[in-house]
């Protein structure tokens, strides 16, 4: 995906092993395209994602970070995603409080059966982030080429 002047947003997607990573696989199986800008990191559960990882991604040049986990109630570990939900609600609210565009961060619940939802979510998220442009507010200039 390329937006004006060759700008390519970088998107990091953290996917839980049990639902969302499988959902991404299903999107692949069904050849449902989503932008190559999205790179997936597998975590056992969405609750493994430390806010530090998210900030690290922004520091290293990510323009958007999305977390995908099992739907609430379906967590493989029964309650992991409930903690994720609280942590991210507070973290995202704080990032926004600091003036960081709220569209750059997202949590989506994607089940192993929702390949189409995974692809659609990534397409839409990528477009949203591309429209915002480069991440300037949480950048670390030393990490930019």
């Amino acid at each position, binding site marked *: 995906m390329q937006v004006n002047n060759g700008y390519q947003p*970088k998107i*990091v997607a953290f996917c839980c092993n049990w639902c969302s*990573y*499988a959902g*991404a*696989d299903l*999107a*692949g*199986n069904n*050849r*449902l*395209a*989503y932008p*190559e800008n999205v*790179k*997936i*990191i*597998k*975590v*056992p*559960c969405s*609750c*493994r*994602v*430390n*806010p*530090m*990882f998210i900030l*690290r*991604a922004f520091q*290293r*040049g*990510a323009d958007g970070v999305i977390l995908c986990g099992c739907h609430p109630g379906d967590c*493989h*570990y*029964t*309650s*992991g995603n409930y*903690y994720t939900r609280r*942590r991210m609600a507070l973290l995202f609210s704080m990032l926004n409080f600091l003036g960081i565009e709220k569209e750059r961060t997202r949590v989506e619940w994607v089940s192993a059966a929702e390949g189409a939802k995974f*692809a659609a979510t990534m397409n839409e998220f990528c477009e949203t982030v591309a429209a915002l442009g480069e991440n300037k507010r949480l950048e670390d200039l030393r*990490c930019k080429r």
Partner: protein
Amino acid sequence: MQRIGVFVCWCGSNIAGTVDVEAVSEALKSEPGVVFSTNYQYMCSQAGQDIIKNAIAEHKLTGIVVCSCSPRMHEATFRKTAAAAGLNPYMVEIANIREQCSWIHKDMATGTEKAIILGKAAVAKVNLNAPLTPGESPVTKRALVIGGGIAGIQTALDIADAGFPVDIVETKPTIGGKMAQLDKTFPTLDCAACILTPKMVDVAQHENIRIFSYSEVVEVGGFVGNFDVKIKKKARYVKEDVCTGCGICTEKCPMKKAPNEFNMGMDNRPAVYIPFAQAVPKVATIDPNYCNMLKNGKCGLCAKVCTAGAIDYTQKDEIIEEKYGAIVAATGFNPISMDKFDEYAYNQSKDVITSLEFERLTNAAGPTAGKLLRPSDGEHPHTIVFVQCVGSRCAACAEKGKEYCSKICCMYTAKHAMLTRDKYPDTDVYVFYIDVRTPGKSFDEFYRRAVEEYGVHYIKGMVGKVSPEGNKLMVQASDLLANKQLHIEADLVVLAAAIEPDKSARPLATMLTASMDTNDFFTEAHPKLRPVESPTAGVFLSGTCQGPKDIPETVSQASAAAAKVIGLLAKDKLTGNPCVAHSDELMCNGCSSCERVCPYGAITYVDKEFRMPDRTTAIRRVASVNTAVCQGCGACTVACPSGAMDLNGFKNAQIMAEVDAICK
């Protein structure tokens, strides 16, 4: 520094069609740590695996990255390959360049570029991988079943038949549970005692089963395969191994005013009693609340008449400690209290009874010897009103009723109505229902028979008010289909009370660190796929403690739980998942945050002595992860403010290395 080998799979044309595999293996060659990089048509084939094995040996690889299909597909394959070549299987990482790349991108340049980045991320991670060995723990080959109702009985019998010793802990003086109190069972109408008591005898005679009746679990420690349980055997003042169950003491006991729990308090029993004729163990128990000897030292008659010399007024509660490999919760249910349902006049009239009381009234071993007589005056009732959903499906007030459907009431009410009409055709029987729910084999046929063959009046509507007038009960109800309000002069009103988990379930769940829902039913490890297991490893669920269910369902679940227990006990050792949390004690604050988010109760705290920077020593409270219980979700790692808690296989540093590689 690692020595990493990279293996790029073509997957025929699946990957090679849109990813330049040659370019990928070439690009990854120059990544830090990579000493070997190649590509091959089918990496998962025998020939492909041989390439990997040879490279491990030839290049002394310490880690490998396979750029191929999803790890969900072949991670296990490649881990085995690595292990076969002497490399720790957890030194293998997969870059998913098929599902996440070649299959969704059409352009070769795009696909290749992305595949390289995914490969780099995997290389970055492997650089920080460490060999992991799954923990092993021995399995105590004995199971504990908590609750001796039909669920516990079935589970215990199945486990015992498979050759493993089982202990049943039952709070009442006898096993048998609610089923022992029932008269007939739907939909076949065989007598409950006839099918249950032989099973009770089987339990009593089974060489692998021990029964701790009149006992309760007071402490649970340890973890899957290695539970340490303390069981309190309450003093029954009768030597269990000496008592012959002859019953002379119960006949001679002068104190006969104790309410008979087995008959729902509808008649009395002596202070020394055997709950019912087929009780197992068939041993007398002295009720300390009623026994004159125990209360004020005056009597002692039972000891005098007991020829076996089984009576022991000095008996004390006894604590038994035992080790178990698996624990099954089978704590069952109770009907809810009717105290808050003033409108049905349950507390005002003896002739308003619950369905379980009705069971006793129609049971040959019950207070009326099976004759259906009104509790108030012993007369035969001619008009009986059954009310369904009393406290079930009640969302308005949590103190009054339960939001869920109790599931069994529709069927037992149909049974009661049918049996009444069968035995006493001169009786008018009304059933007020909201919906009649009969999903089950031969269930709807059964209900229809009650209506069509036995002439039970099923009325769609609810009873609003029951008021005792003289020796009658005035029932005011609605008939929604006729759009009328009915006033029925009834002799007996039977309330289908909602059922709730036994009160002992919640404290037990706390001891087991097993989770519960808001209604105090135990939660399953997975509602669809692991319905007889608790999320806490080694704890299994049997019967109504997991949710309302009838006898056939309870028995199936009981056997299913037994199968799971047998599967566990059949193992000599438990191999854990090595990707477990690990606490760095030097950094741990002992703040309990991790413990609170752990869904498995895998974290405990120990006081440890540490050397402080100033060469003194100090005792600090630090977290300790039980690797046999930890499932590796990582919730604790984020709850930990100091970062002391990390997750093997998904360490903070590893994930951040992936982030860095992707964002570069």
